[in-house]
């Protein structure tokens, strides 16, 4: 990929670069940030673990939430803001939710300027589809492969602008000069050779943490690298107890368990049924959403055509509600043969409609499960999908507590509160990607020639730390530790949690940490996945500890965090975030509470009961 050559078992060789802004991650967030930095005049580098265009964003299916009002002129940023805050059970950073709702429409239009081909309305405008928790049809989409359209458009734009891309290059450490960021350190996956970036601004856009769970829609890349890098640099994470379990993942065959089934299936008319054939969601409408949810099948079905006079079907409640309901049905013994429940669109829409609107779902089930979704229902169950928690940042600039360190996209926290609405991630990437790129450039330029420097001793330490797994004699294989961690997180820190299990998980994580110290890898440095995993595993462990610790502390149920021993929301907990930091010894996690930012009065009026 890179034209780098080095003998596989050599140890020497260090490549050095100087940039104004280094963006770590080339999903939607990283690409948008790099484009913004470049446009603002920064010499910009874009670094990613995979090939360009393969980041998680490529897998997004449903769409980008943006109140463009193309289908419903009544829609505007205020409604979107309100939906986002309510979906997050009011724990969102209000300012981020506001900026997102205000700026998403223009960010989507920009994609169209750069060549994206969205599906159209009859008037020729960008089409918008229904999704859970959104009052109006609001998601700009391309069939069910919106993420592919988005990443390809941004990738083509970045290539056109000539931004330097370092692909299959993994960042393992950040450097600081005093309390300011001075650069980043990593290795080329291809050659194992090390690389150092000197830059005053580093933007983390590394995505999520889902690979710490066994059943997940996330890929090998989701090891929480950005979360861990930020912590090690001294920044804090918020909302880590909130992990989104998407209600509809595939459950069979075992090899694809967890693979996502897009919410668009429900947005486009699909319904959930248990083994008794009952459309059970009507039994699970929470008080909080009663006034806006249909309570009869007839009303729910009328809603697809007439949204003014009917309320939304309960299948389109926010994801946390639906995932919990499915979980309860399965536990009550009303599950399907493979331990899921039924998602049925076959009996509700024509085969032509289904193939047109949901082509990748059709393909995915046909190829991987021998199921024709135009003729039979799908079997689905909850899957770990998204982390609401992430680096604590300033809402307007995305800067963390460390000067020069920014975080954007899934690895940042605050925007989605305790639960993210579908479609709000892709919008988040664009809106805050642009903001971070601009802020990072402005800060870098303000420094003039007085840029923070990299200490050579730190470079040496980073290299030694990366190579440590080769030095171990007779230790354990990283794959085994990873798979034990995934099982443990799934069992003990999953969709329904209790104090005793969370405590157990924390002690298991301690044990994994000890095992990981004696981890050993085979072979040499050239494209060696065992070595790569050994390095990523350290990040997975620290992030898992954050999640378990915060989940144990929050004694209530809210959004993506459900405690069996504290089943309801708690008004006092509703006023605070949990913040985690690396402890002083660098071996574990410290946790403290912090009051939510206070929403201005004029925004509060959106939430008063009418």
């Amino acid at each position: 990929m890179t034209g780098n050559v080095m003998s596989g078992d050599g140890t020497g060789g260090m490549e050095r670069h100087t940039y104004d802004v280094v963006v770590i991650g080339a999903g939607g967030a990283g690409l948008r940030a790099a484009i913004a930095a470049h446009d603002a005049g920064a010499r910009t580098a874009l670094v990613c673990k995979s090939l360009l265009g393969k980041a998680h964003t490529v897998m997004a299916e449903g769409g980008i939430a943006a109140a463009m009002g193309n289908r419903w002129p009544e829609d505007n940023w205020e409604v979107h803001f309100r939906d986002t805050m309510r979906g997050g059970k009011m724990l969102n950073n209000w300012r981020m939710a506001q900026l997102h709702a205000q700026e998403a429409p223009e960010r989507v239009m920009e994609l169209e300027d750069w060549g994206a081909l969205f599906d159209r309305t009859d008037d020729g405008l960008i089409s918008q589809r229904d999704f859970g928790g959104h009052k109006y049809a609001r998601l700009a989409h391309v069939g069910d492969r919106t993420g592919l359209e988005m990443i390809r458009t941004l990738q083509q734009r970045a290539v056109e602008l000539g931004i330097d891309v370092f692909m299959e290059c993994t960042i393992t450490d950040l450097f600081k000069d005093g309390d300011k960021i001075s650069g980043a350190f990593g290795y080329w996956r291809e050659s194992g050779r090390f690389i150092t970036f000197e830059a005053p601004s580093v933007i983390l856009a590394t995505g999520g943490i889902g690979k710490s769970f066994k059943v997940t829609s996330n890929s090998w890349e989701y090891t929480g690298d950005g979360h861990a890098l930020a912590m090690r640099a001294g920044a804090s994470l918020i909302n880590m107890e909130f992990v989104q379990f998407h209600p509809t993942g595939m459950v069979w065959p075992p090899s694809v368990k967890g693979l996502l089934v897009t919410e668009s299936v429900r947005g486009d008319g699909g319904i959930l049924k248990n083994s008794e054939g009952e459309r059970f969601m009507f039994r699970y409408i929470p008080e909080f959403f009663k006034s806006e949810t249909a309570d009869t099948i007839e009303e729910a079905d009328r809603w697809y055509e007439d949204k003014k006079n009917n309320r939304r079907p309960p299948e389109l409640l926010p994801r946390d509600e639906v995932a919990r309901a499915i979980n309860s049905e399965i536990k009550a013994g009303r599950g399907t043969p493979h331990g899921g429940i039924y998602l049925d669109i076959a009996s509700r829409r024509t085969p032509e409609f289904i193939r047109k609107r949901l082509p990748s779902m059709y393909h995915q089930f046909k190829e991987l499960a021998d199921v024709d979704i135009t003729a039979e229902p799908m079997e689905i169950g909850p899957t770990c999908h998204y982390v609401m928690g992430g680096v604590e940042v300033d809402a307007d600039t995305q800067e963390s507590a460390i000067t020069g360190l920014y975080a954007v996209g899934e690895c940042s926290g605050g925007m989605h509160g305790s639960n993210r609405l579908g479609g709000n991630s892709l919008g988040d990437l664009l809106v805050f990607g642009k903001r971070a790129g601009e802020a990072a450039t402005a800060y870098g330029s303000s420094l003039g020639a007085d840029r923070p420097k990299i200490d050579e001793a730190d470079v040496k330490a980073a290299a030694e730390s990366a190579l440590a797994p080769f030095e171990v004699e007779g230790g354990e294989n990283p794959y085994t530790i990873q798979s034990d961690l995934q099982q443990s997180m799934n069992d003990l820190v999953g969709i329904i949690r209790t104090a005793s299990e969370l405590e157990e998980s924390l002690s298991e994580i301690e044990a994994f940490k000890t095992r990981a110290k004696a981890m050993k890898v085979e072979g040499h440095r050239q494209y060696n996945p065992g070595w790569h995993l050994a390095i990523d595993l350290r990040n997975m462990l620290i992030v898992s500890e954050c999640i378990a610790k915060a989940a144990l502390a929050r004694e209530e149920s809210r959004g993506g965090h459900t405690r069996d021993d504290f089943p309801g929301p708690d008004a006092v907990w509703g006023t605070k975030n949990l913040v985690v930091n690396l402890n002083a010894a660098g071996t574990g996690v410290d946790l403290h509470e912090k009051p939510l930012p206070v929403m201005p009065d004029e925004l509060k009026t959106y939430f008063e009961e009418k």
Partner: protein
Amino acid sequence: MGYDLKMRIWRGDQSGGDLEDHTVEVSEGEVVLDALHRVQATQAGDLAIRWNCKAGKCGSCSAEINGKPRLLCMTRLSDFDTSETITVTPMRTFPVIRDLVTDVSFNYEKAKELPSFAPPPRDADNKRRMQQIDVERGQEFRKCIECFLCQNTCHVVRDHEENKPAFAGPRFFLRYAELDMHPLDTHDRRELAQGAAGLGMCNITKCCTEVCPEGIRITDNAIIPMKERVVDRKYDPLLTIGNLIGLRNKDTEGRREV
């Protein structure tokens, strides 16, 4: 219903390599990538494989299975007899980095040579208008997941290293066609496609179409129409068809050649 699968996996690097035999337990519903992952986790921790989504969406896991270019994550073991040995080798057209991972930078270089989309200003209300039927042709091409299996298969470069500099390959003919059929684009890339990108070297064998995991009809829907547009800019029979099926009639007028 698990069984023991016999696999032969190519292992090596630029300096050479060989097929290595592995026997691995597999179960119902699994794909070739699952079997390889199990080999990696239990027998060969440093086996190099590229993959991301495991759902046929990212185009990372391209390789050759029993000599056929395919995605590892979308090839089900049930397509083979349980007694059959499955042989997995890296894509042949690109230089090997290690094991099943190849250097696909050729494709990223070709992408850089392609002049990008050039739209006119937005409408007065700051929006753009296109009809669904006009975007659908381009949408078919934009389903491309950049697995580069078509690039790997095309005989113009598969065994002819010398053709690589002058030939962008089917994936990029698709991109030329997409832009050419984009209802709003203002550039004319036909000369460029024919000349610098080497469209003329393609002799429409359709091998690229056969391996495309997205089922994109690369040859029929992109390459042949592109060739026709290039050959006859004054009388283009496709434009008539295009009009009938609702494609925008894009002639030279109003477009700037790049």
